[in-house]
């Protein structure tokens, strides 16, 4: 029973052109219970994880997709004549800022990077890695940007929460000098008390 359902789920994920979410699976397999589908999916994930085969089942962009094993990338590159995607540093920086800070305006991105980002934003929009989420409710109503599902797919991310964690910004308001100075009068005060006796 689950064995059959597992096989059905496997076929669906295999044929689907984009990552297939559990919700989508549930709507397609309307004759099955959600819990059964989830169980089948989990079994399938476990199967693929143990198999060590050239195909891996990954959770990406909120869905599930079969992909080649990343370790085999060098061999797979030979299969296609198209060059693999390559990012320039400025594109990556802009994309990172948008990914972590979305929704964000162009002015905010440019403040963070210190350079004009118009051309890069246009390219990223064309590549469907970012999208316009709307307009910010401030004077001038600037456009606000966010990342897309394609962005998650490209970087093999489950969702935005699975982005690599940012290093925390250290608090720079308190340089160590001030702490030392705080200690100083206290020592003098106690010393003063001793001499007084």
């Amino acid at each position, binding site marked *: 029973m689950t064995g059959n359902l597992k096989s059905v789920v496997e076929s669906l994920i295999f044929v689907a052109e984009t990552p297939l979410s559990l919700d989508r699976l549930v709507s397609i397999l309307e004759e099955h219970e959600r819990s059964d589908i989830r169980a089948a999916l989990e079994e399938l994930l476990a199967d693929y994880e143990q198999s060590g085969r050239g195909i891996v089942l*990954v959770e990406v962009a909120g869905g599930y997709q079969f992909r080649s094993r990343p370790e085999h990338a060098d061999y797979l590159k030979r*299969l296609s004549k198209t060059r693999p995607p390559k990012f*320039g*540093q400025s594109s*990556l*920086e802009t994309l*990172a800022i948008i990914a972590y800070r979305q929704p964000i305006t162009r002015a905010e991105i440019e403040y963070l990077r210190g350079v004009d980002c118009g051309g890069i934003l246009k390219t990223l929009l064309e590549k469907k890695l970012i999208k316009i989420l709307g307009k910010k409710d401030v004077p001038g109503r600037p456009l606000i940007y966010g990342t897309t599902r394609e962005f998650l797919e490209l970087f093999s991310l489950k969702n935005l929460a699975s982005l690599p964690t940012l290093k925390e910004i250290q608090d*720079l308001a308190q340089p160590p000098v001030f702490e030392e100075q705080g200690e100083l009068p206290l020592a003098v005060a106690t010393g003063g008390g001793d001499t007084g006796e």
Partner: protein
Amino acid sequence: MTNPQQESANLFDDSHGAGYNVRVEAFEGPLDLLLHLIRKNEVDIYDIPIAAITRQYLEYLELMKELNLDVAGDFLVMASTLLQIKSRLLLPVQADEEGGEEEEEDPRAELVRRLIEYQKYKEAAQQLEVLPLLGRDAFIRSCELPDLKELQPVDDTSDVELFELVEAFRRVLASIPVQTFHEVGSEQITIADRINDILSLLQERDGVTFEELFSEGTTRDYLIATFLAVLEICKLKMVKLTQNSSFGTIWITRAVLDAVDAREGEESP
């Protein structure tokens, strides 16, 4: 040092904003350059020696101007910011060294915040780059659906391009044996004959395939006459050529006009 011949094919590359694409040491902007100078001088980011850093920054700017006149305004804005901070530091706002109680912020504070923030995203960008990238590290099945519905013409077919018609004819031509080219005394076949043949064929059936029309032809004359016949009745809008997909089978069907005529005027021969 500049890289004018960057691969324009690679859209992800930094070919846009080429104005300041001065790859002296691959600085992405003024903040990047400042971070580099801070690191190079091994100074504390929280206590930047503004005078020294500003001087080095301006030296770099000079170098960049020599390489590329259109050094982005962004770099100049930062230069003026640095100079402003430098002059504010020179002003005797607080005479004593231990002025911790002062409300006024260190003039460098905002710049330091920006630098740290920028560094954070610079690192984030590096982290993004090492993720398994689709098309570089991980690959998915490329999906090209085979043409499954080539069997019957359907209504929403696209019109056949003339080029494809010629292509189809060339395929037919290529398939006939070479030795029959010089057949002597073959019977005369006229275009009119073939038009009549095709039309009568279409009386019996709803549609014929392009290849079918040539199936009994053995000579070039016959084939060419047939092809010209197809073009002719197509021009007269007596037949319609349809195709389900590029390079798919070309179907010849009666034009709708023809059918209407036939129904209305029974007495016409």
